[in-house]
């Protein structure tokens, strides 16, 4: 059974220390409430299942390396920053720059995500249930970015590797990105993502973006 840690009035060091002790001692599950003032909570965890009641602060789950982190509300800026393994699930929206610099793991945002989401993604699977802002997927080097709704300007700017799937419209595409035909393998993959995270959308209606060149800067 998950124990509850009330973070109200506590600083990062205190809450982080207590949280790690709870995960180690109590079947790896913990719930944290009143944590929206804490930035960098759940940093560098290698396991455990943590639920954040309400909203989280910035840098939630930075350097996550195996934990399952669920936010019942909205997440602040830079959620799941530089994650390598594990899962971050946000029931609400994420602010600017979710899932940046990730090498792996899964980030699912049921609501909308802000500008520069999934920038420099190097291998994570990032699924956004609604719309995203501008400059999303900038300098992405690997991984999948799935946007169920609409995207803003300069989507996929300087895409190097990886795939971007968009269910809605985009305001504009960035440099070094092109539209490709969706394959059956793509549809199957999307179907799997959507089913697993209970997101209603038709995978065949998505469009796929891929890089023009793997070496766009210096010829």
């Amino acid at each position, binding site marked *: 059974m998950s124990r509850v840690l009330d973070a109200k009035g506590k600083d990062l060091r205190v809450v982080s220390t207590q949280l790690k002790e709870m995960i180690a001692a109590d079947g790896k599950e913990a719930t944290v409430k009143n944590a929206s003032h804490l*930035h960098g909570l759940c940093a560098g965890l290698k396991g455990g299942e943590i639920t954040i009641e309400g909203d989280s602060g910035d840098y939630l789950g930075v350097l996550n390396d195996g934990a399952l982190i669920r936010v019942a509300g909205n997440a602040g800026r830079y959620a799941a920053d530089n994650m390598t393994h594990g899962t971050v699930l946000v029931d609400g929206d994420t602010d600017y720059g979710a899932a940046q610099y990730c090498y792996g793991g899964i980030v699912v945002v049921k609501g909308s995500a802000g500008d520069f989401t999934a920038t420099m993604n190097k291998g994570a699977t990032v699924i956004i249930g609604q719309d995203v802002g501008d400059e999303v997927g900038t300098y992405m080097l690997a991984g999948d970015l799935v946007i169920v709704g609409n995207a803003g300007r300069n989507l996929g700017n300087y895409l190097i590797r990886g795939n971007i799937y968009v269910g809605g419209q985009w305001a504009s595409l960035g440099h070094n990105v092109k539209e490709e035909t969706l394959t059956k393998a793509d549809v199957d993959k999307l179907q799997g993502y959507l089913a697993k995270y209970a997101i209603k959308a038709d995978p065949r209606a998505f469009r796929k973006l891929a890089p023009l060149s*793997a070496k766009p800067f210096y010829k």
Partner: protein
Amino acid sequence: MPVVGAFCVTVHKDICINAQMPGKCATCVEVCPYEVYAIDGNGQVAVQNYNACVGCRICAEFCPENAIRINPAESEYLSRYPWTLGQVEEIHHKALTGGYLLRGFGTMGPMPHFDQIVVVPSQLAAEPPKDKYREECEMEVVIGEDTCEKPIRLQYPIIFPAMSFGALSREAKLALAIAAAKTGIAENTGEGGLVAEARHYCHGYIDKEETQKKWEPGGYLVVQWSTGRWGVSVDFVRAGDAVEVKIGQGAKPGMGGHLLGAKVTEEIAAVRGVPVGSDALSPCRYYDVLSFEDLKKQVAFLRDVTNYEKPIWIKLGPSRPYDDVRLAAEAGVDAISLDGIAGGTGASPDLVTQGVGIPTIACIPPAVRALKDLGLHRKVKLFALGGIRNGLDAVKALAMGADGVGFGTAAEIAMGCRACMACHKGNCPYGITSQKPELRARLDPEEAGQRLANFVKATVEEIKILTMLSGHSDIKDLSEEDLRAVDPETAAITGLKLIGYERRMPWWENGHDN
């Protein structure tokens, strides 16, 4: 107006077609409009009038064997500045390719530097000199003593600053680690991830479990958190004895790291998470920092990830040293590296390396002032980087208020580098900045590590000599009073007393804006 007689014309007879077969080629005679060359009745070409050469080099361009060299006969800065041959060639390069120049290494050419400062020895008017041969000199620098559970204790006021795996070969990174272990100082990963052995090598061990110590006394590994975040994971962050947050560097402040595709091998690509052969160009700023408050949050969570045990460091390029250092200190770090314009790089646009940023000697005084104003001087440790070559430069930086210095370019040279400035091409013949196996094989990590350790130890002795002849037995007692500027410009820049005048320049005496 061309300067007559300003050029040396050299024809390499071994490859000149005419020299081998008179009459077969006289291209230089035909293309030269100034009659520098002449052809005789036997068809032999000779240089008949050196003084007529204006340096247009049309002969060199048309020579089918590339046998002709035209070089300035005297300093170009006297005869041709600002239109030196290098400048002319740069414009030609741009006109031909549409691309700007890239190169490795650091700023070249005249720039205010440590050479315009002298060390003042102790005689009657100061503490008597200490005996270098028979007395001790305290040199330890402790980072994070009051803030971290595991502070770093450098034996000497020296670090190897950030140089990435990718910019440097694996062998060079291991040599730096071995040297750090042998001298008790710190090596820095740079932003290219971690060479697997580097951590335990830095600590002096030859095995990952750190049970078999080979190199005494053992040193430290600083891991870098940077804008490209190449190879960065929680394990990487925790592998370090300190974490350095890179904001900028001297060779290209305002730009991120450049690792050109020629050096992105399978091994580098795997560590960095980029495609083989692609350019790994780090962002110029953190995508995940939008404000100073965000930077403070980063410092805070890096402390949390490292269990509040290890120092957090910031590296700055040469911009506005007072304000930048003040903000860095206010972000809550334990140490600050401040890199002057002469700092090195593996690759950078040439014009950025040459012309962006301010000299190292101009960075140190405002940085020290910022720390003093916050009451943090000697608590938050300041490391001066950028063109530090020897113990003399080091002592000058220390006396100006730095706690330590970094040897980056000098460390490469200690490993064997000859400063050809072509690090970015990946063909380093000494195996230091190349990723090609046949070139890397030329660099033995243990041998290069010993050379580096020798260099550090010799430099430490130089620091000891200079500190003690100034009347001190602890590097922390060095002060501006131990230095003099040799010209008004340097006195104006640094706030040091001017030789002869024996006072600071008036505006330093009367106070000034930061």
